[in-house]
């Protein structure tokens, strides 16, 4: 119906190498250690920090691949550098010479001041915890929870979208109706509702994001599948008698990676914003976890003077730069059309 809705970001553009599944494996290699480090860290003991080591080369290779693939756009490369910086911080946090993010050292120390021989580059918050350490560790939290939530939403959304678009009929009707019901909630209202039923916490954020994002992903994948299923190579595979699962995952899915990757970059940004906002509202991660949303929530009560505005400004700048990084990547990939399809959920 709407002209903006019929085009998909980056459709038909070559944005990655020719081996999407190899790159996906590499991404899992970079991701899994980080996830284990944050989610199961307390049970790993000594191995907690060393488990991150294999992720570092994987992340570097991924960065180089993305750098080459985004050669056509300076904007996307700028975004990649910003996002890359924060991912590097997340991976290197345990190895950097930082103070303990939860240890009270010097309350209200302003940025650049020195207390007991320790330089507070970004100052300390009202409890005296080093802001620099909290920002770096907080970035690890937000990237891990945001990334995992987006990944799981993508898993469900993609499968449902492929099924709805390929088989049409009743499958499509039912899945699309369920998707439309979920999308009729304003995102934040849906988050609050789900977290209220399940209780706050990281895993429940993943579930909430899945409910909110998977239908939107499904809608995009469904549209792409409907377009692609008429292609000659799909007909050829059907003639050869390939199984439906093979056609979906090997013939169809890799051919929609352009628009999907652009949407992924945008959605990662939105999820990170949503998690920060939820934590700020007191419904996400709970204290004393170092998290950007929590830093804002705690500082909002005390920072009433310009002198202490840094407590609010630093986490705000951090989350803005990370989201801007992802959005610039998406925009560079699509030639500036990325937001046209994702930002506020379009009508069914």
């Amino acid at each position, binding site marked *: *119906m*709407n*002209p*903006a809705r019929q085009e998909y970001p980056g459709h038909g553009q070559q944005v990655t190498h020719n081996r999407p599944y190899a790159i996906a494996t590499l991404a899992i290699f970079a991701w899994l250690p980080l996830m284990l480090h944050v989610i199961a860290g307390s049970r790993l003991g000594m191995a907690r920090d060393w488990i991150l080591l294999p992720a570092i080369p994987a992340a570097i290779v991924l960065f180089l691949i993305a750098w080459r693939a985004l050669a056509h756009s300076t904007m996307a490369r700028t975004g990649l550098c910003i996002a890359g910086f924060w991912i590097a911080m997340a991976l290197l946090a345990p190895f950097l010479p930082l103070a303990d993010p939860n240890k009270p050292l010097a309350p209200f120390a302003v940025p650049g001041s020195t207390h007991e021989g320790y330089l507070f580059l970004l100052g300390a918050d009202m409890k005296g915890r080093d802001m620099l350490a909290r920002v770096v560790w907080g970035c690890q939290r937000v990237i891990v929870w945001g990334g995992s939530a987006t990944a799981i939403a993508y898993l469900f959304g993609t499968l449902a979208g492929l099924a709805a678009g390929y088989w049409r009929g009743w499958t499509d009707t039912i899945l699309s*109706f369920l998707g*439309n*019901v979920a999308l*009729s*909630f*304003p*995102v*934040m*209202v849906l988050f*609050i*509702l789900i*977290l*209220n*039923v399940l209780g706050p916490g990281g895993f429940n954020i993943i579930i909430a994001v899945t409910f909110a994002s998977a239908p939107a992903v499904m809608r995009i994948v469904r549209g792409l599948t409907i377009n692609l299923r008429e292609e000659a190579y799909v007909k050829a595979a059907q003639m050869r008698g390939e199984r439906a699962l093979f056609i979906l995952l090997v013939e169809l899915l890799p051919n929609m990676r352009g628009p999907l990757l652009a949407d992924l970059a945008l959605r990662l*940004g939105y999820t990170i*914003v949503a998690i*920060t*906002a939820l934590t*700020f*509202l*007191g*419904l996400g991660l709970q204290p004393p976890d170092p998290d950007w*949303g929590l830093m*804002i929530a705690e500082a*909002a009560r005390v*920072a*009433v*003077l*310009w002198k202490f*505005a840094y407590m*609010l*400004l630093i986490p*705000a*700048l951090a*989350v*803005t730069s990370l*989201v*801007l990084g992802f*959005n*610039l990547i998406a*925009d560079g990939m699509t030639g*500036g*059309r990325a*937001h*046209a399809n994702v*930002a*506020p*959920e*379009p*009508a*069914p």
Partner: protein
Amino acid sequence: MIRLILSRLGQMLLMMAAVSLILFAVFDTEKYRKRIAVAELGGLAVSALSQSDYDAWLDKKGLNAPLHTRYVNWIAGLTRGDFGYSIEKDTAVGPLVGAHLARTGLLALFTLALVIPLALLLGVLAGMREASRTDRTISTIAIVTTSIPEIAIAIFLTALFALGLGWLPAKSAMHGGFEMSKLVLPVLTLVIFDFGYITRITRASMAQVMGAEYIRTAVLKGLPQSRIIVRHALRNALIAPFTIIVLQINWLISGLIVIETFFQYGGIGKLLVEAARFGDVQVIQAITLLAVAAAVLSQLISDIGYAWLNPRMRSGAPA
């Protein structure tokens, strides 16, 4: 056209039925029933009750009836304007939500009154001549502002205008009655949060129209630029933005929740967050239902409006 409206209305009713059923079922558990009992009878009384007494109380309140009966009762209550009782605030939900809704409405009204003209003007200016310097400047501003999270915009504005310059109050809780100065920062935040997206849609739509054959014809006929834009281009270019302005109500509601909480503005978003923290079920139910109704209704308006504005859709062609 009539068929389109009827089918959309049907879809909307189906959607509301599904949402209300979900909302009802989610909060219709033993845990929440107990909470109602505790609120009504007091915690000690509930723990002192024997199981049979508790069951008798549930029977009396109609909480033991079969699910479908209770759902019908609940819906019947809603139609009478009985939205239940707020445990936390100790008042009826209807008037409570109404008072907060009025404040949020005021905030949204000011925001939209600023966003719509601003976004349309910037979008048309940018789309008039694609790739011109004006276009590049406006597009970049629009990308950057849509990329900044609403919470960060609120912080930057507070730091600058309230903490730094001291021109405006940092918090907007209006205990002593309405104050215009306390509305400025929340409205400004929402405007910055919201205008970029509509600007981009308007720009894209305008650029598409300016490339159309009939505009070239108008140019070749020697019509003045201003006349081409006002009389020929705008009519078609504003169709897409119209649907988007209505559709992004959903987006605005999400932003409102965070911004009202940040500025301590006593609107519906802050009420929802407080209810969620406290587990005030019937307030959550009422506000969620209201939010979904607003979203679904705006979708209906957008679909019908689009069909009405677009001559190709008016003749009853399949939607």
